[in-house]
């Protein structure tokens, strides 16, 4: 009975979505907004090769700030939410192959993550992606070395400092630039080079660090709900 009701509701929901498909006609050209972003003179104002990054960090930088905040919030909430005595569990010892592979892979993954966020304005990727890769390195660590100590303070510090730098740079834009999150507070550099696009790579790097730290923290909190001892 309930399921029938749900089916009816979902069917109605589907019907509701139908006009959206009906009115959808595909795009032959960019929208007005995108056209603006893709215009040469405007690209040069930001000087970022990756237009998505330009949008994410500059044009819609406030969204990104919110996004970072959400991760930050999640980490904070989980931190105090999952606090408390951990329950015991027993683990099989990890296989030698796994441990060895992790030893090899973790530094590479971290480096790869750093690469991704540092080149966010040049190639696909950016702070979030890089941060996620770093966090996957951390999770690999957790799996391979369950007993290894987690550097709480370090990650917390990283998180805070990168957040502060982000906000600081953003506020700096409002103070000395033409607006909050203005990337022109740093020299725009040469189009297509690593040190270009003004503050974008800096901001994105710190976003990457922050995301990496936050995700690691979250993972750690989940992990520490159970312990081996």
């Amino acid at each position, binding site marked *: 009975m309930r399921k029938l009701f749900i089916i009816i509701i979902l069917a109605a929901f589907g019907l509701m979505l139908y006009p959206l498909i009906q009115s959808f006609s595909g795009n032959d050209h960019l929208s*007005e907004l995108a056209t603006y972003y893709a215009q040469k003179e405007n690209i040069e104002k930001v000087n970022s090769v990756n237009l998505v990054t330009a949008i994410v960090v500059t044009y819609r*930088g406030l*969204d990104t700030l919110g996004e970072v905040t959400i991760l930050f919030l999640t980490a904070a909430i989980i931190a105090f939410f999952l606090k408390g005595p951990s329950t015991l569990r027993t683990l099989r010892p990890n296989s030698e192959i796994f441990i060895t592979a992790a030893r090899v892979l973790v530094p590479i993954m971290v480096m790869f993550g750093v690469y991704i966020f540092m080149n966010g304005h040049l190639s696909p990727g950016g702070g979030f992606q890089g941060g996620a890769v770093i966090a996957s390195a951390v999770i690999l660590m957790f799996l391979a070395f369950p007993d290894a100590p987690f550097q709480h303070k370090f990650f917390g510090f990283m998180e805070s400092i990168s957040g502060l730098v982000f906000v600081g740079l953003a*506020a700096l834009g409002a103070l000395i630039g033409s607006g909050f999150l203005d*990337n022109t507070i740093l020299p725009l550099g040469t189009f297509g080079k690593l040190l270009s696009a003004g503050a974008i790579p800096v901001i994105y790097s710190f976003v990457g660090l922050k995301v990496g730290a936050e995700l690691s923290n979250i993972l750690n909190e989940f992990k520490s709900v159970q312990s081996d001892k």
Partner: protein
Amino acid sequence: MISPIHIISIGLGTAFALGFLNKKSNGLAVSLMLVAIALMAAVSSSWFIKLYQGAEAIEVYTAGFKPPYSINLRMGLNEALLSSLINLAGFLGGLYMFKNLKNTGKHAIMVFLVFVMGLNVIILTRDAFNLFVFMEVVSIATAGLIILIQDGKSIQAGFKYMIATGIIAGIFLLGIIFAYYFSGSLNIDDISNSNLLAFKGGSVAVLMIIVSVVLELKPFPANGWALDVYEASDPGIAALISAASATAMYFVLFKLMPIADLQWYKIISTAGLITFVGSNLFGLKQTGARRLLGYSSIGQLGLLMTILGLKPFLGDKFEYIAITILISHYLAKAGLFWIAGLLKKDKLKDWALLRKKPLFLVLFGTFVFSLIGFPPFPSFFGKWELIMSLSQQGLYFTLAMILTGSFLEGIYLFRWLGYAIKMESNESWTFKLEWNKVIPPVLFGILVYLAGYYSSTFAENFNGLYFIALAFILIIYLLDFLPAAVKNILSILSLALVSWYMLPGLYSEDMLRFIFTLIFLVGGILTFIAGFAYKGKREGFYPVALLMYAGLAIIIRASTTLEFFFGWELMTAGSYFLIIRGKKSMAHGLSYMLFSMAGAYAILAAFGLSFAETASIQLSSLAAVGGNITVIFSLLAIGFMTKTASLGLHIWLPGAHAEAESDVSPMVSAILLKAGVFGLMILMIAMGNNPEATRVAYVLGWLGALTALVGNLAAAFQEDAKRLLAYSSISQLGYILFALAMMSHLGWMTAMVYSINHFLYKSILFLTIGAVVLKVGTHYMYKMGGLIKNMPLAFIAVLIGIIALAGVPPLSGFAGKWLFYNAVIDKHWYFQGVIVFFSGIIAFLYLFKLIYSVFLGQLKDNLRHVKDISIWFAIPIYILIIGLMIFSAKPDLVLKPLGEMISVWYPNAGLSWEGGLATAPYGYWNGTGVMITIGIMFMALLGWLLLLSSKAVKVGQFNIVYSAEAPQRPETTHVSYNIYAGYNKALGWMVAPKITEFWDTMSDWAHSLAEYGRRLYSGNGQVYTTYVLAYIIAFYLIMIF
């Protein structure tokens, strides 16, 4: 000026920086958070001040690009106001939860800070996607704050909240992205400019955006999750969610509404109405404070939603209405949640504990009254404007539903207030007060008064002087620690001062108002004199009594319907508190309040309708009403008749008057009821002799007659002396209603004479009986008896009172009867007249019972040594008796000016005077002559009897012939209980409590409806998601049809 964008930098920067702190410095962390929020508040409020002084709204562009290319924030007057409010709530909320946050640690502090910051951005941002992001920020922060107390219930509530808002957010995102697709921009202004509604897909996108914001406002019935959140989260958090989040979300809806069209406004207003009525209905069955507050919050949001939906109809009034009601809700709800947190008791009935901290009881009352829209709170003025505008637009259904919803809300809130004031509480447990938890509610309590005053300055033709009276009452309240006598003197002086200012002017200008002022204020002074009999502090009595008198004075002074209504509501509030002071008057106070509220709403609606027709709120403009005259006058009559307790609307009165304190009973009976009479007179003057109005008056006439009959019959069967007098009041007011409804010179004359007389003798009787009750400690007449020997003063007072009341010549009551006959025959209302006459004779039954059972018959064992009534009661009683005697001996002193006054409206068929001899169209009467004749005769006969039997032996109470036996006990010899059994057998069916049963049934139905309805909220989070989705579908269906 600091750019508003720095609200974000301050908030986030501090939040991020808090991560540096270690565990030990949690206190520092909270302080930092408070500093940050204070800074945010400083920024927003400085903008508010600047903008209020007339500066232009500013736009903040991020990244240095103009919108829509980048995200822009707007700081306008509204934004500045709302973000200031949010920051204020955030600051005080943070302060309130200081310890809580400190114990949970820096992470919680961060979350709290980000929550406040996120709300600010929600207010400021003009970008749809940014809005989405920060709504998510806020909703995640909320999910985090809910579990701050970490008990099972809050975790469940949080999870339900997450899944519901998860789906809502998804739909919102879908709407935004399609809006972007169709309009090519994410800026809200651009989206509203591109005509999305022109095609189906666009409409669906708009639907998705609007409906998800609506869902964030917790519309009925897709709001089960929200209720759980209110119930389970920490009260401090619930306060923020209710005050700050709701404010922000409301503004979001306001911001987004331009993308929709008129049809959407209508849908929103309907959704709001359903929410308002539905959730207030379900609130009826709640027993837990916080869940109740949840229902109330949701109801208020529904009301706000309705107002938003009515924006196209309200025109430029919209902002005033919305802001006043929003602010009332904001202050009151936050305050209530905070108090709930202080008390730590969730059961409504446990709130009696609050009595131990009178300050909080006052705050609680303040918040409740401000929620319901009583003066002087902002929502009063908001609701007033709302009703005026609605009726101007002809939106009668909406008007009716809004009043219904408010009424339902009133039921549970006042019941709750009643519990707090009166419920038995035998717990020794008291609650601790910490300064940080006291400041926020106190501050909000003060703010709500200030906001009320400020709102009033916007109201047209509203005399701000009235607030001086309120300020004086406040001072009296602050002096509550003084002994009662001092406060009594102050109160008397204040009334005397007001009388001194009001009376002389009125005497020459307006006799009608003069007389009522005399009754209200001089009566007030006299009843206050009786207050000297009370020892101790009498906490809380004087402010509320003065509040009632202030209301009465304002009613007299009022020249506009707004002022009148203002005074009316003040009086209602004051008298409510007076009534509920009685020992067992919790239920009676509630029913009084409910009838009064319903009556007030009827009056409000009528004023609205009249305003719609005449476009004027002058009281005199009522006379110009033409079209809806029957409806308007009926509504007004019903409204006023709730105060005069006419048949059907009377059930509150007996209990309320009977259980009230001894000097309160005359206040509420002899004085307060006259307010209804005054209202009726204003109404009738306005009605004139319009044929439509005459029809209403005809019905009123019958109603008055039946009220008189039933009231008197019921009084005859009472065993409780004060209840008897209360029923007597009902019937006396029935006479007055009848006489007024005659709408003729003599009829009005009768009504005025009755009003004056009723004031005199009912004051005398209630004061005396009250004083006697104080002495003998029971209300029940059969437990008294034979008190004449102990209380001669009281006996004489009652004797004179009942002779006057019965209308036996030569006392003044006869004046009313005589006029009444002439008026009835003149008006040709014979049958009604006979009913009234019949009831007049029935009065003898209860009057005899009153005086006999109390003062005559057998004196009881335990009352052998009682003393006469307190001198402080005797003074006003005998002053009144002197007044009564003067009126009796020289009725022309009063009747002549009355006749002149009434000639203004009804010039014909008055009395003609020849010395003391009055000649009416049918009869003649010389009050003075009768008095003298009877006086001489009586003295002669008394002398004769004295001559014959002066040597009679005084005997004891058992020296009676008792069939050759002697009585054994006074209790078994005193015939009093159910003394009119035979009469009851014959006519008792007329007073079977059918009307009470009727209202009880109504109440049962409402509660059963609420009981069954609220099962909708099954507690299953999954089901709630179904509701959410179904709600969206319902919107869609409404949209396409």
